[in-house]
């Protein structure tokens, strides 16, 4: 299943707001560092990755975690990975 960038952006924000429920995710600039902007710790981050996997089927190896620092980078990564899969 291929999503547009806008759809992917929405999905990433959706998943994020389930984890950092206290934050206004829609107002978060796509290029802002997630760990700086939000109060999320490494456990939250693992849950974030797991939820992305659940939603998109994309498996994110540990090695690639550093690429998922902003919403924009997540969208980019997930879009590329879904294309590679299909």
């Amino acid at each position, binding site marked *: 299943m291929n999503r547009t960038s806008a759809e992917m952006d929405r999905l990433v924000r959706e998943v994020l707001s389930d984890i950092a429920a206290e934050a206004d995710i829609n107002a978060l600039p796509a290029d802002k560092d997630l760990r700086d902007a939000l109060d999320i*710790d490494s456990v939250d981050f693992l849950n974030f990755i797991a939820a992305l996997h659940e939603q998109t089927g994309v498996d994110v190896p540990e*090695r690639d975690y550093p690429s998922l620092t902003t919403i924009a980078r997540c969208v980019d990564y997930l879009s590329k990975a879904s294309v590679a899969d299909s």
Partner: protein
Amino acid sequence: MWRQTSHARRVSAQRTDNVQVWSAARAALDGLPHGAGLNIAHEAVDRHVLHGRGGETAIRWLGKKGDRRELTYEQLRDESNRFANLLVGLGVVPGERVFVLLGRVPELYVSVLGALKHRTVVCPLFSSFGPEPIKQRVNLGSASVLVTTAAHYARKIVPIRSELSTLRHVVLVSDDVAPEPEDGVMSWALLMGEASSSYRIGPTSPEDPALLHFTSGTTGTPKGVVHVHEAVVAHHATGTHVLDLRAGDIFWCTADPGWVTGTSYGIVSPLTHGATLIVDEADFDVDRWYGILQSERVNVWYTAPTAIRMLMRAGTKAVRGHDLSALRVVASVGEPLNPEAVIWGRAAYGMDILDNWWQTETGGIMIANRPGLAVKPGSMGVAVPGIEAQILRRDPAGHLEMNDGEPAIEPPGVDGELALRVGWPSMFRAYLGMEDRYRKCFAGSWYRTGDLARIDDDGYFWFVGRADDVIKSAGHLIGPFEVESALMEHAAIAEAGVIGIPDPVIGEVVKAFVVLKQGVVDDPALRRDLMAHARRKLGAVIAPREIVVRNELPHTRSGKIMRRLLKARELEAHG
């Protein structure tokens, strides 16, 4: 019979040895010049300068964004002197409480050491705490001074500022956020710039309070654990015995100073040895961590089971590309390290990961696998030199069997409560303002740890579990009551029960069960709102990762929520 006699003889010989261990440990430190006492900061910093090692690196700071900063022992002495003078300038007197709410930045280390020099009591708070835990701790500790950043201040302090009645001064370390001018709020850079870099530490009794750390209990508010300057004797000695610390070592303790490990072993112990501290501002990341171990040539690495299990997930392949040949000791603390992790460590790092055990109350490592002793995977090791540990007999209700004022001790192989004979230098001296709760921790001449364990025939201890409902998540103790209280402040919640659910990576995760008030509709928006409320109040580390709505919760006859039953049902349901 023979065995008991031999045991008794061994115990009495050990007691004499223990006294000698601590007097030798005291002799390894300098004391303040002219017999003015014992001060942690002098032992950690100033004495190295006096010994001609002022040019060596004390702190090597690695910023999140790749920036680096180094402080030599001489610079650290001068900077901490400035901070002590800053406190003088604010009119803060010895004995007052200085709280520090900072990420792992050099200013944190300077503040802690400077506050110790000025003989104030310093409390580093974990910077991920939300406003609620901060408020509770600042008020329990009657803080006079808070050192934090403008961002933390705006987000976490402003909403509760009017409720922090003892707080007179806030000192802001600069970051991206420009602070609003405000009464009692000052700039770190400005004050430090004006402060002199020479400061003479006043007479410090080894029994003067020095450090304050909060720990969570099952019920009520967190407890403020008070440690005195004499604790440095144990910090130093255990650094030798367990971590094999030597002058000039590159040492990396990955714990945040907001937790006791990050202070005792992330600041004090390695500095007393003249080691170089690696301070990494960033959070856990596999490649970053292996990169640091390699490029900084780390000799001694003190970390936590949660981190080790996350590294295990990345596999031995992630290690292979890195040169870890400088590494001499890998140690772990926070919760029992599972045997698989010890075995994995042998394959991954070519050495045993040395698990050890201690608590906020003990101030330093008490039981340990240590260099030179055979490691039994899954065991927390043996009592460190100077410490006598035993297993006390408990009845099913948790009461000890007392004979002539002393508790009965279990033989090897029987579960009971782990206890330590009182009198080691880093033993806590009080729960701040809670005399009764402090006294309850002792039975005869033993400190009761609240941990259940057993000892084997070789003197190795094996952790069994907590004697209470305290949740251990990622190595941190979380009091269910604190979480429940915060949840109860939400308008929709009638009742809350909080437990820990076993988790393969972080030990336990915090899970909450709530009953909604009459008429409240349970829908996804409400769930999200509950979660947001908990995280806003408590911060990510303490807030539940999951909140479940129930129609009712199990109660005792007296009306208390039966967390144990809640937990048993939960474990049964998920097999």
